[in-house]
């Protein structure tokens, strides 16, 4: 039995298809049409809803964490044990009911006050992203960058965004707002607690295990079942290719897959960790990674998508694999048969093919702490300086897929590169190390000659292709030019090197 909280009711659904999206459930099964379909591919945000989840805060108290999601690429199974909030629920129903203006939620009212809707079709999605931003914003005043990040997954074709930005600034800077969801928090927590966090099997091909053992067993029994992490890629098979998913094993219930912890020499990251969770945790270790993660899809996708999913789908243009490759990370593949650890750069075999066997799942990743902390290098400190750089080049800054993604981990002694490891996305059929480049850089100062040699080395590493995002020529040129950016950042750190970092 699938159970979730919606409009203050516990909803029990026994036989929903495994591949039913939340959007279709709302619009077609429930006739709740406030949530709009703009693209059905998670790229426009018109269908944004907010999912509330029981978590423990820093003091260990139970609290509800609200995060936005694209309902068009979220399967209903993902709602189990959670609270679903849609735009239809934001307005406080007043008596008499005609007086809607006074019943508007603050995230709705700011849009009206700032003339931030025109055709109105994207508006419910913006309202929900604003609502989520309001629930998660920490620092006041919020920056324009924060607003861009929170709303970067919502497209508006009418307004040019200025009034929406103004509305967001107003909403997010007006201090603590207590709304009906805060008032009801006690009841909501109670209700969510009441939903047993047990394994779910709907009888319509949907499995939600809650332990690793259950998961391994299910995967062994149903090797063809689709493994559902955040589903932000998998759901496209349903909404775009019109495939039916006969059976789905959802990872969301397996708490043992969702963690970020530190051991003496590694950061361990559970494969089920959301990109948002990963980002929140990694910023402490590697702030250089944050700008890339801020531009990784949109907020709604980052909230849903998992670290493991970015590897399991084996896309040549995922942004995490190059990073993990450059940082010399490993991953654990596990099944009922046992587990094995492989280097991330060995995981990808050929286009869309990995080492993952049908009965296996990706359980976790390990990034050596030495990737960030010189004192942990096997060689010891020795005056070594670590430089990590992660570059994403795409047609649009927000919510776009990389034409080229380049990750560099360099160890420098003075101005000399002692060791280099790299990872590239968009340059080959798989995310890949640039071994010739690494060999060329090692032991050298990144001077003119070295960079010339490096560019030649890159042509040995990669023969990129033309596709919809970029030509092969552009990819070659940019990957080479990024070495110049890298050198500039190492040797002239005060010079702004990216349009994003530029302050004016």
């Amino acid at each position, binding site marked *: 039995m699938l159970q979730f909280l919606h409009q203050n009711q516990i909803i029990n659904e026994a036989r929903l298809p495994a591949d039913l999206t939340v959007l279709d459930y709302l619009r077609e099964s429930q006739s709740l049409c406030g949530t709009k379909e703009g693209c059905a*591919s998670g790229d426009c945000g018109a269908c944004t809803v907010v999912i509330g989840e029981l978590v423990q805060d820093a003091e260990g108290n139970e609290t509800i964490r609200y995060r936005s999601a694209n309902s068009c690429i979220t399967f209903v199974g993902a709602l189990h044990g959670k609270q679903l909030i849609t735009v239809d629920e934001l307005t406080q129903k007043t008596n008499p009911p005609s007086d809607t203006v006074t019943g508007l939620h603050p995230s709705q009212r700011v849009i009206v006050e700032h003339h931030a809707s025109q055709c109105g079709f994207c508006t419910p999605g913006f309202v929900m992203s604003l609502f989520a931003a309001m629930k998660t914003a920490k620092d006041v005043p919020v920056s324009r960058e924060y*607003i861009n990040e929170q709303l970067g997954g919502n497209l508006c*074709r009418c307004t040019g965004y200025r009034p929406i930005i103004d509305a967001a600034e107003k909403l997010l800077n007006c201090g603590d707002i207590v709304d009906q969801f805060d008032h009801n928090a006690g009841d909501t927590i109670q209700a969510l607690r009441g939903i047993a966090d047990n394994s779910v099997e709907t009888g319509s091909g949907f499995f939600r295990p809650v332990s690793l053992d259950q998961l391994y067993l299910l995967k062994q029994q149903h090797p063809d079942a689709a493994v559902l992490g955040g589903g932000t890629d998998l759901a496209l098979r349903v909404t775009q290719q019109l495939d039916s998913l006969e059976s789905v094993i959802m990872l969301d219930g397996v708490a043992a897959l969702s963690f970020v912890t530190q051991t003496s020499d590694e950061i361990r990251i559970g494969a089920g960790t959301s990109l948002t969770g990963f980002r929140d945790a990694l910023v402490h270790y590697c702030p250089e990674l944050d700008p890339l993660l801020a531009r990784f899809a949109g907020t709604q996708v980052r909230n849903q998508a998992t670290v493991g999913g970015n590897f399991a789908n084996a896309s040549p243009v995922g942004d995490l694999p190059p990073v993990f490759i450059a940082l010399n990370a490993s991953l654990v593949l596990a099944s009922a048969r046992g587990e094995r650890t492989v280097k991330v750069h060995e995981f990808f075999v050929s286009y869309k093919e990995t080492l993952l066997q049908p009965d296996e799942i990706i359980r976790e990743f390990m990034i050596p702490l030495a990737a960030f902390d010189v004192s942990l290098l096997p060689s010891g400190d020795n005056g070594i300086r670590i430089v990590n750089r992660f570059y994403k080049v795409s*047609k649009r800054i927000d919510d776009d897929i990389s034409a080229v993604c380049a990750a560099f981990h360099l160890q420098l002694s003075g101005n000399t590169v002692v060791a280099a490891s790299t990872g590239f996305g968009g340059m080959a059929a798989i995310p890949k190390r640039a071994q010739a480049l690494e060999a060329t850089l090692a032991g050298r100062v990144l001077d003119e000659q070295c960079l010339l040699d490096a560019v030649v080395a890159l042509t040995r590493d990669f023969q990129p292709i033309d596709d919809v995002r970029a030509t092969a020529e552009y990819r070659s040129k940019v990957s080479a030019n990024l070495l110049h950016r890298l050198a500039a950042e190492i040797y002239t750190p005060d*010079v702004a090197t*990216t349009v994003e970092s530029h302050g004016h």
Partner: protein
Amino acid sequence: MGTSEHESAVKHVCGAAPYVDDTVDATYRHIAIGGSEIAHGQITRIDLSDVVASDGVVDVITSDDIPGHVDIGPVFKGDPLLTSTEIEFYGQAIFAVLADTRVQARKAIRKARIEYSKSVPVLELKEAIAKKLYVRPPHRMQRGDAIGALNDATNSPGIHTLSGEMRVGGQEHFYLEGQVATATPDEDNGVHVVSSNQNPTEAQKLVAEVLGLSMKDVLLETRRLGGGFGGKETQANACCCFAALFALRNQCKTVCRLSRRDDMIITGKRHEFINEYEVAFSDDGAINAVKYQLAGNCGSSPDLSDAIVDRAMFHCDNAYYYPNALIDGLRCKTHTVSNTAFRGFGGPQGMIASETVMDEIAFALQMDPLDVRKRNFYSDEGTDITPYYQVVTDFTVPRMVDSLEKSSGYRSRRDAIREYNRANHILKKGIALTPVKFGISFTATHLNQAGALLHLYTDGTVHLNHGGTEMGQGLFTKVAQVVSTELGVPLASIKISSTRTDKVPNTSATAASSGSDLNGMAALLAARKIKSRLTEFLLAEHNCTAQEIEFGAEGVRIANEEALSWQELATAAWVARISLSATGFYKTPDIYYDRENARGRPFLYYANGAAVSEVLIDTLTGELKLLRTDVIHDVGSSINEAIDIGQVEGGFIQGVGWLTTEELKWNTEGRLLTDGPATYKIPAIGDAPAEFNVELLADCPNPAPTVIRSKAVGEPPLMLAFSVWCAIRDAIAATGDYKVFPKLNAPATAEEILRCVDEVKAS
């Protein structure tokens, strides 16, 4: 007149404003359209047996099943609803399916087995130009002797010439609500179609023709569109026809809603253009002669392309006087989806040629491009005539440009940018200030008409209907404000209902920025009729003069007498058997155009604006950031400043998208590759300028007799985005120390910027 919020704003934020698909429930059946998988050739065999047998399929049709007209071309033939033989573009509709559910219909489509005899498609505009493949004959506009002047220029001291070519890409509308229509059978074999549509009357006519019905049998209704931008002027009609056809064949409710992918593949877009130019100019930058060839890629059929390429020709002067001009417009045919209306309607594609020329002259003379622009502005008698012989009057561009130059600190910032660029080798900044002059009126004169219907009820409230459609631009709000002001009733007492062909007939598309000019005036005239009847009634009942009667929000005041509320007044007039319902009809005065001789006054007036933008580019990757934009725009006396500013900002950003990140790509087979938002990138929130200052030109009522002396605002601001495109060129030029003219095309994607940077560096 104020800043009232959009009439649906509260409903928008609550998700309570119904769009067409929101009304679809389980009683509707769903349509999907099966398209060609080649770009050009002949169908040799259609086997739909598996489609018919597919789960949930109720009905399948091909061209043979269309009872009436097959062609739904809006002006000229060439757009079969379903094709039976010839394939002209990838995705062209061949058959359609009705099924119980949306997914069943879409899955069934994939089971068709269609065989073709393939021909080699012409996909590139260049090839179509070279082969003289046209959907309509070329058209020429000329004034003076451009050829003579260009020939003489080579021997004249102090006169220079230059020539060049630039390409500007097309643009996908990407309205957030995709194409959709529903149909419900009506009695007497009629049909009620609800559509997200900018042109209900045309859809009504085409549905009638396709079904072999009369227009009286077809009711078209549009309450609101989730974005139109020109993409639902003709492109919404096919969904209406399919929905109606299946509804009547099967006597059931139907919905035809395209998936985003289908929408992007099978509906038309903004025309790509290749513009060639030759210019003669003097030492001070003054243009003596221009010769333009503007070649639009119309795709496979004429659609609206004749008027679109004409509008490109009408706007390749922008704000500049050409003593001698020769302008050729080509309507090129390729085997791609037929291109259509898109905000600006060809105007932007023509205008970008003039802005390219201004920049290139500036480079040739090492002048500030702004000075070249100013040197060429339309001015006094003798330098106020367009290439189509309309006299430019009340030209607010110079005034706005001067004001903007000062308020934005253009000159000092330009110096500071040069300084910055000398010190920075990776990042470069650029700045540009560009004007816009855009002609307002449909250039097909007969379309400049509109109707409205107004009822005053006995409780003093008003029902208003007009032929315009609400697509987010705030038309309903503005027209209600006009009526409120004219009649005196408070805005809250006025309800505008959905646009319906049975209320106001024979309307024009809501297009050409004309919505509030035309419909606002029609509604104003209707309100005036009611008001005059009420005045006559009051004069007869009360012993007073017309001057002593004052209408207001509370009702009517008559000197020395008790005021009457609107309810009391309306009721009293009703008892006295006064008609409280009126129609208003408006046709734009004083416009005419002789196309054969390319002379006349096609536009009632010009809408103007100016913008200055500063950009930052990364010369290693071509990445771009828009740092600051300042705009002054002339909307005459604004009916609603908040709505007008919204149009200015939204149009500007849509133009920025067209000129930067929005790139359409096809493969060599003619299949569109950028068929979703994952690959086709419209501006996101981070693409809005870091600093954005928008101002409406103050105290400048429209000298033309428009409603409230306002000016149209829908399209013109899109072209303010040339300030960004020209600023990018300025930034690129820094990599060649401003010696080399960067031959930048549009869209200036990161890839195009980098290509251009490398080209400048190499020369």
